[in-house]
């Protein structure tokens, strides 16, 4: 069974007033299969549709047509979310709560019993180096610290599938390395990871396979080992060729 399976997925956004509606095709006929324990990196220009695809997979947005399934269940299934974890680009948290409170809240939603919940929350905060600041209000946290809280909430439920949207966005070099180490640990633990990123270095170090999304279409999908030369050149060439083909 494929962990993530997308079939003929399309998403069209409708905007404007009823007398002047505008349709924007964010995703066009995407077909994608990601196997268990695979780390898949999705590359694309800004506005290509990467975040839209992830949001459909985690159930925040609904497809216009086609299907998406996670662990054999339709995307957005509530029970499946017990085995999923998601990190958005620039995570936001309730400003007046503390990391301890927000992680405890998420842990309750994961149905973790009392003692286990306390241990998991403490463990996650220790892992990301925020245990000492566990009782500080989140409004006092920097962008990088908030990202680390976001990473901490990934580690609560021992998920099987991870959706990471620009996980190293806004992080300093040290935190970036720490983040990558965590992802590599997850990979080593046999987790399936779907990664949206602009960072080619990340792709090189972490991914097994990459896909390139351009103007809502999945124009390329290949194992990393098949790419000869630099991934940057490969990416640029594919996107340019796609642009020329469309002209």
């Amino acid at each position, binding site marked *: 069974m494929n962990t993530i399976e997308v079939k003929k997925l399309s998403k069209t956004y409708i905007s404007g007033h009823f007398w002047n509606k505008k349709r924007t095709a964010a995703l066009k006929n995407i077909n994608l299969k990601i196997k268990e324990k695979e780390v898949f990196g999705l590359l694309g220009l800004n506005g290509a549709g990467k975040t839209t695809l992830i949001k459909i997979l985690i159930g925040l947005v609904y497809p216009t047509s086609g299907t998406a399934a996670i662990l054999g269940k339709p995307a957005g299934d509530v029970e499946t979310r*017990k085995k999923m974890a998601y990190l958005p680009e620039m995570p936001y948290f*309730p400003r007046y709560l503390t990391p301890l409170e927000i992680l405890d809240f998420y842990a309750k939603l*994961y149905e973790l019993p009392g003692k286990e919940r306390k241990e998991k929350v403490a463990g996650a905060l220790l892992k990301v180096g925020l245990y000492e600041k566990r009782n500080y209000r989140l409004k006092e946290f920097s962008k990088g610290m908030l990202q680390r809280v976001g990473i901490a909430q990934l580690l609560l439920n021992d998920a099987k599938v991870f959706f990471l949207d620009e996980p190293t966005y806004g992080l300093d070099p040290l935190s970036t390395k720490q983040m990558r180490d965590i992802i590599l640990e997850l990979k080593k633990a046999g987790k399936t990871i779907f990664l949206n990123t602009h960072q080619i270095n990340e792709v090189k170090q972490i991914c097994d396979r990459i896909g390139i999304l351009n103007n809502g279409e999945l124009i390329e999908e290949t194992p990393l080992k098949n790419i000869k030369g630099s991934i940057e050149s490969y990416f640029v060439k594919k996107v340019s060729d796609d642009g020329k083909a469309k002209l």
Partner: protein
Amino acid sequence: MTEKQSFKKILAVAQNTLNECIRHKVLNILFVFALALIGGSLLIEELSPGAQGRTLINVGYANMELFGFFTVMLAIFIITFEEFEMRNLWLSLTKPISRTGYLLGKFVGLTFVLLLTLSVMSLIIMGIAFLGKIDLNFNYLLVVYAMSLGLILTIAFTLAFISIATNLTTGLIFSAFIFLIGHLTEHLQAIIENPKTPVAAKSVLALVYYLAPNFSLFNLKDKVYMNEGTFDPAYILQITLYAALYTFLALWLGSKAFKKKEL
């Protein structure tokens, strides 16, 4: 997911909501209420001879409803602004909780905030009444109870409108509008019954009258002076049922809209 687990998650969301409201100092509105009432009581002493007690109590309970409404709107605005505009909601909804469960949790949490606010306000009024040697009978407790039913219903349809509307401000404005219309039912009724009102206007107003929740049913503070003895318990049960059913329908609609909402 068992029902017990769903219920625990709803309570977790409720507790989180309560924490957020307390941290955002929504309850500071209570200080404004207390100051307004204490200041008002000193003024009323001078300005309303022969009716000081009555005026003080009327001001107290009218303020309670107003401040209760503002507390609800403020709490909902603060929480939903952060969730929708600042995208706090994304991480919560990717956890194993249904959107209906999440909405219910918010509703329960906001209800806790409201009941806490009204309880403190009631205690303040009782304190002022005690110091002013004003008698408060059991009917006043029923006045607060009926008021809280109306405000709980307000929470429900505000959450419903926010789920339906494309932006937060529209939802809140519409909710405030419905709250106002619901309080104008006596006026609406008079216009509908007036033979001079055009038929078209009558039809539109009648539609509004029957669709909007009738908040005058919960207004027992105007009836305190009309009744000798305790309010009719059957009436209290009827308005409780009315509030419960309307709240259920509002939340049902809200949950349908919220399930379809794209974030």
